[in-house]
């Protein structure tokens, strides 16, 4: 399935765009998505370890399933405040 991932801050900088489209198998997890993202954008792979992911604006862990048509966001370590 086709999944769109929003990118922010350093991830957006490195990818050169604020959204990337990944091809994932059915029943893929966030962990699978993390790996696919590293394969599709090799420059990102070294930075993905500490990144979190959000599904419909809520944090999820690597075991969570990626539903079709969900809004997925890649969240680098935050530095607001």
């Amino acid at each position, binding site marked *: 399935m086709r999944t769109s991932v*929003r990118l*922010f*801050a*350093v991830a957006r*900088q*490195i990818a050169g765009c604020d959204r990337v489209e990944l091809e994932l198998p059915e029943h893929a997890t966030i962990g699978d998505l993390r790996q696919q993202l590293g394969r599709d954008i090799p420059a990102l792979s070294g*930075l993905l370890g*500490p990144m979190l992911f*959000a599904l419909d*604006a*809520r*944090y999820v862990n690597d075991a969570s399933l990626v539903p079709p048509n969900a809004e997925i*966001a890649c*969240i*680098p*370590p*935050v*530095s*607001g*405040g």
Partner: protein
Amino acid sequence: MMIELTHNPIDVARVLASAESRSAGAVVLFLGTTREESEGRRTASLDYECYPEMAESELSRLEKEARQRWSLIECSVVHRLGHLEIGEVSVAIAVSSAHRQPAFEAGQWIIDRIKHVVPIWKRENWADGESQWVHPGLETPPTTAGE
């Protein structure tokens, strides 16, 4: 109660006023301000960006959780986005309570949590011309201006 993300300078007096109450004995205001120096390197300015939908909902969650943890009267959080010069206010938190302890504790807890969970990021525009996204725990490459 006021939970806001704004590209305009934060109206601190308005945030503070939002926490006033005749039943409050204590108001604690926290301001995060942009510093000229960070770890020995001079900063010229900063840029903040966020994941808008999630940043606002995470700030609201923090406000609700703070109210569950402490007996608060008012609780407001406003975070600035976009380009900030040195000395500007990046975040303002105002908390009021009958007695001072809850207001201090909740104020401190909210800014701590913001720095851990709210999807907002800053980019340091160093005085030497380099810019760099700040991601605690990550070595980040410099960016070229305006990227």
